């Protein structure tokens, strides 16, 4: 039915589309390897004349990137820990029952999922100020960002729990396990992969968190890498090879994790996000 050459034509078109779509990423890496004058060459060179990675160590030191990246890791870890610990249990219960209360709970979670951070930041900032949380700004950001990340996590992990057969848990209960025992030794291990993928997604999005950190953290020693990047980025920036090198250092770990786990991440998303 299909002519033999069609698939290869399609593959070529697909690769071309992917290349166009991923061009911005390529441009980031290429720009970071160009010299200061080559950046402003007209017409631009699509491959650097003499690739020069020396801007990487320079930016790393000059922009105190270790401090920024460490803060990003601290914030993202905190957000992931809170989200996973609180969200997993919530998702489990929401997947286990079907009644009016569960519908109300799900509705609340879905509503919270849609709140823009720019709506929440003003009341959170004033509220944190009153409670005195602004004294430990990273904790404040972790709490705020965890509340933002949790609804999405709950929706995705709930789908994972739905795919764990109820009979296995019931069998464990009949065998004399307590609810706690059945949860920790039967249900959690079966849902482990799904939870792990969602936790990684949570970590990656918290790693790039910007608006809460920018608004709440004033001390440069505690700010994450996103705020560090915004420090030399604006409508009139010109230092493009440094900016692109900074961006490359910042996103390469995320991209590497994503490419490694691509299959699982896509599967986790498609099973949870809509179905």
């Amino acid at each position: 039915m299909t002519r033999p050459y069609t698939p290869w034509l399609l593959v070529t078109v697909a690769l071309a589309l992917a290349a166009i779509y991923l061009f911005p990423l390529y441009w980031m890496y290429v720009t970071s390897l160009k010299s200061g004058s080559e950046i402003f060459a007209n017409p631009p060179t699509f491959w650097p004349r003499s690739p020069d990675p020396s801007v990487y160590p320079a930016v790393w030191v000059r922009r105190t990137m270790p401090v920024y990246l460490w803060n990003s890791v601290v914030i993202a870890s905190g957000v992931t820990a809170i989200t996973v610990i609180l969200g997993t249990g919530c998702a489990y219960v929401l997947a286990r029952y079907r009644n009016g209360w569960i519908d109300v709970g799900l509705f609340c979670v879905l509503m919270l999922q849609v709140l823009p951070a720019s709506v929440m930041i003003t009341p959170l900032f004033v509220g944190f100020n009153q409670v005195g949380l602004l004294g430990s700004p990273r904790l404040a950001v972790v709490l705020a960002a965890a509340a933002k990340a949790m609804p999405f996590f709950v929706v995705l992990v709930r789908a994972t729990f739905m795919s764990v057969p109820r009979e296995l848990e019931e069998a464990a209960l009949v065998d004399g396990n307590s609810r706690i025992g059945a949860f920790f030794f039967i249900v959690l291990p079966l849902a482990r992969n799904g939870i792990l993928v969602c936790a990684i997604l949570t970590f990656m999005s918290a790693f790039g968190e910007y608006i809460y950190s920018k608004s709440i953290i004033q001390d440069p020693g505690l700010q994450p890498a996103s705020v560090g990047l915004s420090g030399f980025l604006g409508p009139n920036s010109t230092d493009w090879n440094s900016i692109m090198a900074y961006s490359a250092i910042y996103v390469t770990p995320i991209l590497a994790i994503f490419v490694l786990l691509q299959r699982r991440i896509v599967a986790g998303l498609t099973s949870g996000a809509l179905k």
Partner: protein
Amino acid sequence: MSRFFNSLRDGVGFDLLLVGAAMLFLIALAGAPLIYNVLMSFQQVDMFTLGALMRPFVGFDNYVAVVRQPEFWLVTRNTLIFVVGSMTGQFVLGFALALFFAQKFPGAATIRGLFLVSWVMPGLVVGAIWSWILAGDFGVLNVILRSLGLIQSNIFWKSDPNFSIWAVIIANIWLGLAFNMLLLSVGLAAIPRDLYEAAELDGANAFQRFWTITLPMMRSTIGAVLSLGLIGTLQQFDLFPALTEGGPANTSNVAGYWSWQLSFQLYDFAKGATVSVMMFLLVLIASVVYVRSTRHEVRG
């Protein structure tokens, strides 16, 4: 007392504990701030009353003041353009790509997965990269458009008042395109193949099959994708500080960024809260549509 602990360990108390902990956390850090936001929008908030809960009430003064701001209608118009432009672009391109990748060819799933890279990248980095691509004098987009003969002279995407909002829209389309495509692909994969075969036997051409099978079968998916797109677009913040900072002269400012500017650059928290309450009402409408269109799917 022991009955209480028993129930926690081995009864419905266990469920209540699990769901209660998460709900308390969410109420404290999302529900309460939301109500507090509404309260603040009716109060006079300045540096002296910032630390107090009960501030002088001013009724609708903040709302009146916000609407009377000279930039109010400009920001409203920009928000509409931004939402409609981004959603249209993301949806049309996402649907086209989803249809393309629904063909059977080796590596389709893997290549499609690569597109999702944009979705995991920090918004600020995406903004930085596009800021460089869209730069007026040395940006690569202008060079490409010029060599294709589409434009005669450079477009100053970020500093030309006619184009600044479109600069952010282009970056936002790139950012959200992949997620739209993924969700639409899931919907496409769920359509039974034999429907198409039957239609083909009946002599329907590709366009007719798309119009009479694909679109009607995708209705709930399309509803969910469009409302998620609306919500995602209203949530977009990071691209604005990276690309235009709302400028020049607010020509690329939208409600979310304006609210943040009022609160954190002008320290006018009452007006910031007022704008974000207005925006919340918009999000509320979108999310009702979203919940309605995914309800049966979420309940599984």
